[in-house]
């Protein structure tokens, strides 16, 4: 189960706090997956008590203070993303933190759906644990995603690459597939990227301009050990 509470001493009206939280949650907590299971209890709560504002100072509201509202909303979104990433890093048995970036989608919702499908594929997650550059599983997950906009995936426009993390000595991406055509295998380079704790899978759909990020981890032997015996 995911639970979260965020408290600020900014003053924000209830309706605008709800709008900002909904926006932030969609781009943070609703963009993570450890094991693909949705709990009965998932909840994120926000409080804004205005203690940092003066006594008679008005609360931030999206209609009366739109610029302040957007600034607050974006700060909240960035903060929520940091909190959400901690959950993925602490995923049961997880040894990898993986950012799945989908670009070139017709809509944000389409990009989000493709990223979610890749992030919840058990076979992709097993390959990540095994540090196996199995891009075929990634491509397969892209191909069976039903896009919310109804746009069909065009296999001849899809590209896939692995991007090393910020601390990697060689930051250049490893192109695996370009417009549906496989690139020559460079297993040594793939191993260099996959053996690190953090990495990014980047997918280009070639269907539009929208993008989305999703955060996931690998599936390990330890995950099964933990969850084979939870109630006791």
């Amino acid at each position, binding site marked *: 189960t995911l639970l979260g*509470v965020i408290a600020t001493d900014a003053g924000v009206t209830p309706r605008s706090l709800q709008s900002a939280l909904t926006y932030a949650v969609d781009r943070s907590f609703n963009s993570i997956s450890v094991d693909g*299971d*949705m709990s009965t209890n998932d909840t994120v709560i926000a409080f804004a008590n205005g203690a940092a504002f003066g006594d008679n100072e008005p609360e931030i509201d999206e209609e009366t203070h739109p610029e302040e509202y957007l600034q607050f909303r974006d700060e909240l979104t960035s903060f929520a993303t940091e909190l959400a990433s*901690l959950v993925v890093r602490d995923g049961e048995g997880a040894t990898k933190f993986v950012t799945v970036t989908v670009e070139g989608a017709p809509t944000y919702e389409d990009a989000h759906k493709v990223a979610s499908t890749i992030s919840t594929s058990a076979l992709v997650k097993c390959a990540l644990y095994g540090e196996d550059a199995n891009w075929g599983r990634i491509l397969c997950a892209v191909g069976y995603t039903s896009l919310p906009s109804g746009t069909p995936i065009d296999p001849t426009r899809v590209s896939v690459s692995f991007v090393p993390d910020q601390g990697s000595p060689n930051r250049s991406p490893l192109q695996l597939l370009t417009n549906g055509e496989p690139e020559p295998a460079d297993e040594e380079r793939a191993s260099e990227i996959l053996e690190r704790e953090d990495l990014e899978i980047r997918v280009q759909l070639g269907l539009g301009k929208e993008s989305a990020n999703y955060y996931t981890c690998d599936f390990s032997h330890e995950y099964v050990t933990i969850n084979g015996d939870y109630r006791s």
Partner: protein
Amino acid sequence: NMPRPTPSKTHLHQPIPDSHFPQGYIVSSTHAGVKKKAGVLDLGILLSTTPQTSGAACFTRNAFKAAPVQVSAEVLKSSEGRVRSLVVNSGCANAVTGSKGLKDAWAMAASTDALGRELTQSGGGYETLVMSTGVIGQHLPIEKITNAISGEGIKSNLGLSFGHWEGLARAFMTTDTFPKLRARKFSVRGKEVKITGIDKGAGMIHPNMGPPGLPHA
């Protein structure tokens, strides 16, 4: 692909200066007895001390919404978002627990409301949101929880330091390997404001949450 140990994540938890936490909140945590192991924190509260506090929430879209989810949504609706406290327990999710589960979640809210009124010398109706996490299909040891809220368990640990916030973060934990607590400062309207956050979760994680009132999954 032989099994290998999960790497330690404890370095992801670091002390935070007390001055980084937002003004106007007090928190507490205790061992109420939901978890079997003695001394392990399993109950926490957060109270805003300012009279006009806003609250908002996003809840699971799972059709089987746990009792605390239902109660929190109702409190937010009836208060029109003017809430100012939170009570959370770990070890038992109070999910799929029928009418007794709802009664227990309301009892947690009522006990925390009473504590909030006592501490802030204020009146008012329901102002507390409720969270539970842990095993599904078991009833809460509700008397242990309400006794801890109204007794010394919670009252003796009230405070606003890093240690108090860390205790609250630990009270959220189930299979988490470290408490998840962060704080930041930023500027808005030319004023420095602070934000802090706690979350928990390690398994059964693929949230799809929305504001109260949205349809089920």
